[in-house]
């Protein structure tokens, strides 16, 4: 699931192993003797993701969202500390009742077709989603609770909500909505908005961000040129090209042989080779991406798996440190909760991973009455504790991950076998073709998968609500109390109150254990020493959190 999911991002504990942030380095450089900024040039960026569509109402792949960040205005974006700051909106104020927010947008920007970028474009985009929730469905979820978008003047946007909302939550949702040029999209609505999904939005795209997408070849290349009429700071580079690779070894080879200047996130297996090259700079930081062990929480084939005590025993039998050391080659951290530590205040530090203690795990299963059988496999409810674990082939290192878990569980008399399928087939087994509560989620026991949470915890918390059956739910977990807390956190106006609820939800999941969070994987990327100014985040430098990276990035002289 999820690799196509737009990644979230996160706060605080960004660990730079090699400094790569640029910012004002060049100006300082003149005084300190550090390398100077060389203006101009084309950055050649390699990616193992791709752009599947240039239409925001159709796109799924991460590079598509990253592209939208650089070619379209967004009301707000994140800064390097992962706090929300202005992008097209200079500032904003909330009404006292927190039911509306007024944005003041920057004047003077132009779309690449010469039309001015105004708040009216932003209002048009939001109203498009309110008017056509079906065709805009891939984005419309971000407009949840919005009931109106009005422009008293071309540089002011008032967004109205159906109820008082939490400011951070509301802004984090708006951060995901690109502002589209009304003059282009209003021609594409067609019959009841159906044209919005068939519009291919081919290059050259009418762009209002710092770059214009000038050329795009599917599965091959996307070329961007600087937009001279961008409303924000001028990039140092003249443009950049995004080259797509389906083979990470080839991408790394291209970087090391000067076919590329920088690469997006790559696997730790290539790290040693890149580090050995004196012309390369490697950047690593904690990521939001985590792997999880899934218990079917509705109707597993073996019903003993619903018992939280059994789940806890399983948790004690899995050596999480070995998983980190072997699967990520040490480039990760032991997992605790579904809200990753890099999300800062949203992460509940009181939730700890179960200690690796096989004796304790065995004792717990003994206490539950699951006696050891003659062949070393325990018996539960008259049947051997033998389970099948679904593993999607999209998860990097999934075989080794399974083997380590298998070895751990074997020590407590539990036998697991691997069933490897592609993600679509795994979900089909999990949820079944018809997703009807409570009849679905009854054809599997266990699984291993991964998640890419967003920067705001709303999304990752939402995957466990009952409504997500057949959509994001890969556990069949359904708890009305949890659902209520989820509703409450989005509407908790007081930030501290929202945090309390988010923490409470993490504790609830840690106790019920639909997931055992196994580990978080680091983000690793690299670039040539001739370049600097990359602004790293828990989802890499080229991301859909901010425009900073490709505005700051530059050659050094």
């Amino acid at each position, binding site marked *: *699931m999820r690799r*196509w*999911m737009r990644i979230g991002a996160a706060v605080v504990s960004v660990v730079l192993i090699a400094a790569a942030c640029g910012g004002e380095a060049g100006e300082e450089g003149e005084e300190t003797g550090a390398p100077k900024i060389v203006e101009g040039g*084309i950055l*050649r960026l390699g990616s193992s993701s791709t752009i*599947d*569509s240039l239409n925001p109402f*159709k796109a*799924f792949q991460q590079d598509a969202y990253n592209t939208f960040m650089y070619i379209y205005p967004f009301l707000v974006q994140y800064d390097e500390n992962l706090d929300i700051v202005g992008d097209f909106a200079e500032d904003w104020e909330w009404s006292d009742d927190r039911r509306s927010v007024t944005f003041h947008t920057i004047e003077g920007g132009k779309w690449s077709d010469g039309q001015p970028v105004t708040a009216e474009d932003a209002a048009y985009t939001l109203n498009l989603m309110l008017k056509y*929730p*079906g*065709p805009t*469905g*891939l984005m*419309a*979820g*971000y407009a*949840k609770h919005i009931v109106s978008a009005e422009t008293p003047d071309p540089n002011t946007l008032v967004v109205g909500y159906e109820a008082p909302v939490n400011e951070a939550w509301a802004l984090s949702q708006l951060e995901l909505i690109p502002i589209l040029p009304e003059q282009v999209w209003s021609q594409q609505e067609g019959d009841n908005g*159906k044209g919005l*999904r*068939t519009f*291919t939005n081919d290059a050259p795209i009418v762009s209002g961000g710092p770059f214009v997408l000038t*050329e795009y*070849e*599917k*599965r*091959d*290349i996307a*070329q961007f040129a600087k937009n001279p009429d961008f409303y924000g700071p001028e990039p140092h580079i003249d443009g950049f*090209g995004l*080259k*797509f*690779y*389906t*083979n990470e*070894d*080839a*991408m790394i*080879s*291209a970087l*090391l*042989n000067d*076919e590329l200047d920088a690469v997006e996130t790559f696997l730790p297996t290539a790290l040693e080779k890149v580090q050995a090259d004196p012309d390369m700079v490697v950047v690593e930081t904690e990521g939001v991406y985590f792997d999880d062990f899934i218990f079917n929480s509705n109707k597993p084939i073996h019903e003993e798996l619903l018992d939280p005590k059994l789940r806890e025993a399983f948790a004690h039998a899995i050596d999480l440190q070995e998983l980190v050391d072997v699967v990520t080659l040490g480039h990760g951290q032991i997992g605790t909760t579904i809200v990753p530590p890099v999300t800062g205040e949203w992460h509940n530090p009181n939730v700890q991973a179960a200690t690796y203690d096989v004796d304790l795990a065995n004792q717990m299963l003994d206490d539950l009455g699951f006696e050891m059988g003659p062949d070393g496999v325990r018996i539960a409810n008259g049947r051997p504790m033998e389970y099948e674990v679904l593993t999607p082939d999209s998860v990097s290192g999934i075989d080794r991950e399974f083997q380590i878990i298998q070895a751990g569980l074997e020590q407590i008399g539990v036998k697991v076998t691997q069933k490897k*399928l*592609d*993600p*679509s*087939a795994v*979900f*089909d087994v999990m*949820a079944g*073709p018809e997703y009807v509560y409570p009849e679905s989620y009854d054809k599997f026991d266990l699984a291993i998968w991964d998640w890419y949470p*967003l920067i705001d915890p*709303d*999304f990752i918390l*939402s995957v466990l609500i009952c409504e*997500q059956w*057949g*959509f*994001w739910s890969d556990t069949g977990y359904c708890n009305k109390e949890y659902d209520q807390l989820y509703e409450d956190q989005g509407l908790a106006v007081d930030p501290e109150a929202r945090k309390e609820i988010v923490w409470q939800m993490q504790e609830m999941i840690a106790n019920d254990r639909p997931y055992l969070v196994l580990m978080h994987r680091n983000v690793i990327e690299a670039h040539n020493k001739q370049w600097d100014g990359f602004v790293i985040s828990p989802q890499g430098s080229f991301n859909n959190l901010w425009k900073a990276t490709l505005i700051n990035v530059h050659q050094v002289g």
Partner: protein
Amino acid sequence: MRGADYVIKRTVFALVTVFVAITINFIIFRAAPGSAITNLSRVPGATPALRAELQREFGLDKSKWQQYVIYLGQLGRGNLGVSFSSQEPVADELKRAVVNTIPMVLLGTVFAIVFGTITGVLAAWRRRTAVDYASVTTALFFYSLPTQWLGLMLLLLAAGKLPSGGRVDPFLFNPSIVQHMVDVLEHMVLPSATLGLVLYGEYTLVARSAMLETLGEDYILTARAKGLPDRTIVRRHALRNAMLPVTTLMALSMGYIVAGSILIERVFSWPGIGQAVFSAVRDRDWPMLQGAFLLLTLSVVFFNYVADLLYFKLDPRISE
């Protein structure tokens, strides 16, 4: 008239094959677990309304039988449908991918045909000599190598000398025609060589085997008894008869040109039909898969049809 019967039979057989393939294409992808809706409706805040909208949009709210009738109707009008993933016409998607694939695969296939046939004939002609042993060993070696492994090895060996992936250097701005041609050829070398080397082994073995069989025929013995030089025997009498199985293999290879090679295109990030099919399988993009496999079917059937007609010309026994 026997010739006309033969052509009519082969034509009818080809048409029936295509129709059966069309039907199997429709059934087989729907039999696999998972669906495009599952993938596409998994977005934040997704609702049953979104799923219903997608099902309606893709026509999946209709019965399988209705979908099949619509599919046949569309095909009858030359419409391959619209891709679930990209929402673009399948024909456009296929055209883009096939145009990228054909030159690369054609180069590799032609290399294999030419060198494989030459080495196969030489090996048979110089049977039980060093030439024979070297040819067969080399052919078996390449024939048995996993394609993706060979591709990766070539990629590593040629690192820094030839491009690591892609079809052209996108950062070669405003190239002259010569520069562009050189760039395209450089990018094609490794993927074409990978394909060519794997196929080459097959051609060598088939050509050698066919040639050996022919060289054992009585009429070859007669030619030798007449005192004809070896070269003439091979060129005038043996080669043409040995070409029948090679012709079949060539027809098969040419038929598969539009299929590309998923493994080679993945290793070399080649934006061709192999990659398009790979993505379509992962996305359960049924119209795209149906279109790609229909194209492949048509291509294979067409080249086999051509081979059948060539047999008619090459082998007089058929027309007797």
